[in-house]
């Protein structure tokens, strides 16, 4: 009780430095938790984001590029896959479902992807979860210039059922590259929190035959999404396409390709984490500086406490506890900072990839980072506490000149 009273009063007496130092701790702690949580959640979410597919078949090239293009709707297609190859893998007994995709156009920066209705009716983007169309709309019909919009794309483009639009050529928006064809929005997908939310879906043939596209490759597709009957079959098909063949690439398993991407940028994670820890150290250093600089002003109070019978260990403990209390105050505020940062980062990631991070998701860092910051601050408080421990009572009590 005595220690706590001493700490409370001291925090109040040095209110400005308490607030500034606690804010420094809040920012540093919030940054540390944000970096950690976003890193983990992004890794887990992206590597778990297979769209319900096991593999991607595409033109000879990078597996990662294939996955990013066909599953995350990022990157350009490494090339085309002849229609015959689509039919070939679709008829393979190891394959449960094969859905072709064609890319190459956009509408105001949002990618147009041509596919078949099987993508929506037969596949599950997550176990037990199928795509659903918002009431009042429907899926496009093959052979018609109809579009089904992902929820995020519809919201950002401001399109609703019945609206018409002209696609633009290429994956990047160029106002001068407008196609002549007019598409009508016939439906909007319920949010799936997958990259599909950022896509404008149209019939496969619509994209293949868009004006200005090379008619000689009109039957080709950009990639084929593959659902296997058994995971073991992936090994056989990988051998077939990647080792024995030399025209196509079979990217399997999808999660492994994304994990590979994260591994390649692992150094970046480490740099971010290091920076966050350095910021945390600087913030706890500010606790040390703040209390240490006030020690001259506290000299008399410490001497009075000692004269009243407080032991050296008591004043030592009061200073360490004060440093820890500043960190506790800061870390309480840091949660606001954490949720704000993660919400902003999640919004950016969603806008760029369609993948949704949950700012409210539990992460152990929310527990151990505050504990670490409080421990670091308490450790920083040891330096001024040693000074308090060594207070010369007789000198401290002598009238100030």
């Amino acid at each position, binding site marked *: *009780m005595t220690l706590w009273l001493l700490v409370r009063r001291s925090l109040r007496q040095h209110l400005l430095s308490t607030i500034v130092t606690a804010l420094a701790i809040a920012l540093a702690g919030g940054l540390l938790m944000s970096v950690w949580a976003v890193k983990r959640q992004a890794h887990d979410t992206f590597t778990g984001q297979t769209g319900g597919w096991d593999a991607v078949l595409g033109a000879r090239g990078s597996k990662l590029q294939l996955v990013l293009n066909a599953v995350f709707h990022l990157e350009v297609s490494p090339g085309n896959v002849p229609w015959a190859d689509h039919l070939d893998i679709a008829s393979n007994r190891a394959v449960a479902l094969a859905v072709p995709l064609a890319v190459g156009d956009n509408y105001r920066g949002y990618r147009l992807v041509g596919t078949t209705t099987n993508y929506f009716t037969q596949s599950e983007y997550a176990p037990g979860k199928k795509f659903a169309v918002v009431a009042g709309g429907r899926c496009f019909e093959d052979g018609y210039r109809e579009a089904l919009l992902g929820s995020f794309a519809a919201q950002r483009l401001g399109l609703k059922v019945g609206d018409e639009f002209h696609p633009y050529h290429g994956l990047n928006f160029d106002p001068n590259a407008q196609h002549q064809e007019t598409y009508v929005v016939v439906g909007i997908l319920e949010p799936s929190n997958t990259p599909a939310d950022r896509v404008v879906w149209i019939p496969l043939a619509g994209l293949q035959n868009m004006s200005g596209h090379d008619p000689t490759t009109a039957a080709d597709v950009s990639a084929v999404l593959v659902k296997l009957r058994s995971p073991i079959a992936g090994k056989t098909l990988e051998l077939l396409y990647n080792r024995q063949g030399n025209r196509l690439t079979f990217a399997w398993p999808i999660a492994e390709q994304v994990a590979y991407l994260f591994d390649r940028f692992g150094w970046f994670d480490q740099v971010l984490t290091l920076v966050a820890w350095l910021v945390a150290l600087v913030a706890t250093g500010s606790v040390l500086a703040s209390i240490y600089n006030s020690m001259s002003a506290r000299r008399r109070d410490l001497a009075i406490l000692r*004269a*009243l*019978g407080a*032991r050296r260990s008591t004043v030592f403990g009061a200073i360490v506890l004060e440093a820890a209390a500043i960190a506790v105050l800061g870390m309480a505020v840091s949660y606001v900072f954490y949720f704000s940062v993660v919400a902003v980062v999640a919004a950016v990631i969603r806008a760029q990839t369609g993948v949704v991070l949950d700012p409210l998701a539990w992460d152990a860092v929310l527990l151990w980072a505050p504990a670490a910051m409080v421990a670091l601050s308490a450790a920083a408080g040891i330096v001024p506490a040693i000074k308090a421990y060594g207070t010369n009572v007789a000198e401290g*009590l002598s*009238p100030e000149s």
Partner: protein
Amino acid sequence: MPLLEITDLRKAFTAPDGTAHEVVRVPRFELEARAQVALSGPSGTGKTTFLHLIAGILAPDSGKLVLDGVEMSALAEPARDRLRATSIGYIFQTFNLLQGFTALENVLLGMSFGPGADRSRAEALLRRVGLGDRLDHFPRQLSTGQQQRIAVARALANRPKLVLADEPTGNLDAANAREALALIRGACAEDGAALLLVSHDPGVLASFDRHASLAEINHASRPPSA
């Protein structure tokens, strides 16, 4: 047996030039329980050092200091701290109140290092010194006379056996000084505490039946006057 018994107490400080300067050399001093004694002496005669030694704030270089049967000079610092908190009340010339704490908290803190904070006793003490309506006031909100009264209440809070007062009226005007002195002496008498008061005010000294000159009991050599 006297409450306070001092034998051959010595304390020296090292001057900046490295030479040892003896400040206290008291061959013999005794104080009976409940006694009230005034000590006089000009500045620089080691009055405060002598009180600090009795309070256990300073450790003597040699000699024996027994308080209420406990050889204080043989105790380690934490034990001296404990003994000071429980058995000694200390009133300073500059009051030495904690400015960030209210009147009541100043008294409660004094208690917390001793037998433990007792809010009702702290309030009663402050009422007794006339500050019952100033419990939540901070020292800066009170007059110097009122601040000294808080210091008196704090010194008596742990029912000490000995109260040390170092020029307790030095910072007060004549009227407040008279009041403070009467309060200290009356409170010590009521609580059964012995009082050892240091002052160089002839008026204060004259009010005590027993007073001694520190120059008489302290045999330390005086440094040459500057």
